[in-house]
């Protein structure tokens, strides 16, 4: 799986969880750039991502994710 494929799946998850159809993520996107992505929805997104990709993020790893690019790379390293 490459970064573009991962981004595509993440777009779908973000739109579904945050109930916003207009979301388009890029590698540089952070929580500040997406309306509704905050501390109250962050773990819902992580949980959905974990179920979709059948992976698990320890909390210390989640803390280190600074943008969508970091998230994509973490998913790719766990799924490949």
């Amino acid at each position, binding site marked *: 799986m490459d970064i573009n494929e991962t981004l595509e799946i993440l777009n779908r998850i973000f739109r579904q969880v945050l109930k916003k159809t207009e979301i388009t993520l890029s590698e540089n996107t952070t929580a500040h750039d997406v309306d509704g992505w905050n*501390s109250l929805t962050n*773990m819902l997104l992580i949980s959905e991502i974990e179920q979709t990709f059948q992976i698990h993020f320890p909390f210390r790893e989640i*803390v280190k994710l600074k943008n969508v690019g970091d998230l994509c790379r973490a998913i790719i390293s766990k799924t490949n």
Partner: protein
Amino acid sequence: MSFISPEFICLFIFCFLLYHLTRGKSRKTVLLVTSGVFIGYFHWEFLLIALSISLLTYNAGLLLEKVRPKNKSTQTVYWTALACLLLCWTGFRHAESLTGNASLLFPLGLSFYTFQAIAYLTEVYWEETPAERNLPDFLLYMLLFMKFLSGPIERPNDLLPQIKKLHPASYDMMTYGLKLIAIGLIKKLIIADHLAPHIDEIFQAVHTASGAQLIMAALLYPIELYADFSGYTDIAIGCAMLFGLRLSPNFERPFTAQTITDFWRRWHISLSSWVRDYLYLPLTSVTRRLGQTGIAISLIITFVALGIWHGVGWNFVIYGLIQGIVIVWEQNTTSIRKTISRRIGSPLYGLLAAIRTYLIFAFSLIFFKAKNMDDAVYFIRHLSFQTHSNWKEIDLGISDHICIVTGIALLLIGIYEYFMARTDLLRQIEKQPAVVRWSIYYLTAFLILAYGQFGSENFIYLQF
């Protein structure tokens, strides 16, 4: 030694002069010695406790880094240090009830520097920040006198780099800091301290107050609390700016919030973000498989903990519980709010939502301010529009003259905060002609000296 005491003003001026007359490492020594004097002035034991906790945290940070490359358990070091900090805080918080000795004092600032210590250790444990090796720098991070008593709770990545590069404050920074101090003094001396004695009286004797007086006290207390605490914060941030240091903001027009969720992003920001990062997020990580239920459980635990931090008793648990339940409710009713907003129009909805948020917060503060649970329940059960004799008593005994002065000050602060949201009003003042500028300065000084309620040196959040 309060910020509004002659002793503090003398110490501050002496420290300010020495700081700007010395160079290099001597500046750190000046700030460190001043912080020591400031803390020790209350009780030398307070300084001893603060130093012990700082040294424990400093050494635990170094130990965390030492054991990490050898693959030894960093968890043991982290949790042991954390347990020591929490035990110490809990021990002092409950010392009076545990020993029955009423003369035992809760060390000033303990909650705030313990929070800073936990933030530092957690950041080192998460490898988000390196352990600080320079002891004087670390001690200044923990004990810096401007934020020692009631915050803002500083993160290591924000304050430590500034401490490492101490420099004299620029003229711009100094004048800006002085203006912030003036704003803080207006909030504290003209608004909070004029309201405090009358509101305190109602909360101390809820059984003798009329229903209308109870309503007025409940409605005015959020204003008093905000003026007191944000006044303190403005003074603390302003004082730090006179030394070229930038402390974190603590308030961002909280009474414009349309939801309690938004309110907690604007109220006591350094504490609410601390609680979010070091308690709520780890909790949601554990409960994330439960979806929305997990978020709800984490929110309620977090806010109950926040309530308990403020004091011992069921009333503080209920205070936290109200915040948690309302936020959970708000998370599940977003679409209803959007529909109402569309139907009645955004401006009217914004106004009504802000009033609703204020009323919910004012209601929860009854539990926060009441002496105990019985008083809080009595207070709520007797809220009504009934008076003992006539409507005049809703002024809570505040004289007409003080009502006008406090009302005007409140209006001025409201206008100031309204414009600060759009442009930096304090910077705009600097661009005005000298006549306008100095007229504003003299008028502000006159207002503070003529109408300030001098005499009370206490700030509400000192007790925490």
